[in-house]
């Protein structure tokens, strides 16, 4: 049955080459922990992606309750944490996942650095990787404000001040982020929400696609 559905689609869309590009390739011995235990360092990138998927899923469920408004943001998080069934788990996974994704990404970066895997021909993929790192830090920064509790507000104040100290365009960045040159309030919360939920994830998905396409095109770097 499944084969016939596959054939039906393949006859019309020629999906076999797509499938081959995504999944039909070989994994060399030196990155396979089943052969060399020390090859677990090659798992960091995959685990980063794994946590990223969990972040996207748990984030989608969090937005079913969260309200990006200064009156209700904290209350909605409090309700989610204390009243909603498994809300504590979903929020907990998003909270700890945010830290884990940074940890795994950092380890992945170190692995790529110390194995010299960024060298020709993989320079572009390294640059995309650094951009992913920056986007992830941006996601961490914007997500920190959303619960609208004391540490969220005052840490973001500091963060915005740092952004404002950029020479020449600092003030412009500040207004872009906070929505106002003085007040950090309702506008800031909606902007951070939009950046955290739409702008940065869109950028992240595009960069991840580029990252993975390049890996498939170039293959994983050889053994040292």
């Amino acid at each position, binding site marked *: 049955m499944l084969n016939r559905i596959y054939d039906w689609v*393949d*006859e019309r*869309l*020629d999906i*076999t*080459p797509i499938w*081959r*590009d995504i*999944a*039909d*390739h*070989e*994994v*060399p*011995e030196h990155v396979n922990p*089943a*052969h060399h235990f020390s090859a*677990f360092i090659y798992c960091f990138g*995959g*685990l980063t992606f*794994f946590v990223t998927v*969990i972040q996207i899923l748990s984030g989608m469920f969090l937005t079913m309750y969260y309200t990006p408004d*200064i009156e209700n943001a*904290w209350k909605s998080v409090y309700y989610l*944490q204390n009243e909603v069934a498994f809300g*504590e*788990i979903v*929020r*907990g*996974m998003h*909270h*700890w996942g*945010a*830290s*884990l994704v940074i940890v795994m990404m950092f380890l992945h970066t*170190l692995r790529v*650095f*110390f194995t*010299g*895997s*960024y*060298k*020709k021909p993989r*320079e572009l993929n*390294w640059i995309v990787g*650094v951009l992913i*790192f920056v986007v992830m830090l941006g996601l*961490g920064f914007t997500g*920190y404000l959303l619960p*609208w*509790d*004391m540490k969220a*507000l*005052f*840490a973001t*104040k*500091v963060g915005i001040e*740092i952004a404002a100290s950029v020479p020449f365009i600092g003030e412009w960045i500040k207004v872009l982020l906070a929505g106002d040159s003085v007040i950090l*309030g309702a506008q800031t919360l909606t902007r951070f929400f939009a950046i955290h939920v739409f702008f940065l994830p869109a950028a992240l998905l595009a960069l991840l696609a580029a990252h993975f396409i390049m890996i498939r095109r170039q293959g994983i770097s*050889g053994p040292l």
Partner: protein
Amino acid sequence: MHRGKGMKFVGDSRIRSYEKNRIPKDYSEYPGKTEAFWPNFLLKEWMIGAIFLVGYLILTVAHPSPLERQADPTDTGYIPLPDWYFLFMYQLLKYEFASGPFNVVGAIVMPGLAIGALMLVPFMDTTKERRPLKRPLPTAFMLLALCSMIYLTWESVVNHDWDAAKAQGEIVEEADVDTSDPGYEVYMNQSCVTCHGENFEGTPAGAPLVGTGHTAEEVKDIAVNGIAEDGQQLMPADAFQGSDEDLDKLAEFISGITNQK
């Protein structure tokens, strides 16, 4: 079109046929045991993912994610702290060469240089050599950066008053109070309110009275005789000055204050 199942397209916008063979290269250039990604390798990788997920979930269940009290922009005494992975930058900004007039050095120049250098690594380290020990400069710089990040994070952790940070952000319980209760009037007219606060939230001089768990009898005793703990007088005796009737009303009222639901 001779690919796939021999499909036919209508019109001219078809995907051009590839001149080169698009089948991915195998890894025969590497000696050793290669393995098919699908499904062999992916099945093993799931096991690593599953082990990771178990640790992740244990962390989530053992440490519920924190939530401080609702943001209050007027409380300017609050000392903020960024998430842990920004702590090294937070610490950097405390040093003289990176704060005050040199703030831009610590906030923009140094992080900017670090990210910029990281991005340009492939163009600075252009030799073919990949082993870390055979390219000492990149390795040394990375280890230096790593050590300074760990050191700065450590410094900021040991120099932070975590108990004060926890206390300043704690969610204050709002009392569920019937202000028409005769005991409320007694509370406001006696000296109680000066130390225990208008909303029973407590002050540095007096404990909060919300959900104390004391019975009316115990409250009466405390109001008259005070509380001592470990030889230290927490609340003085004779704080209550008034009739026994008022004391009854007060005790009944205070013992009934519960958390707002």
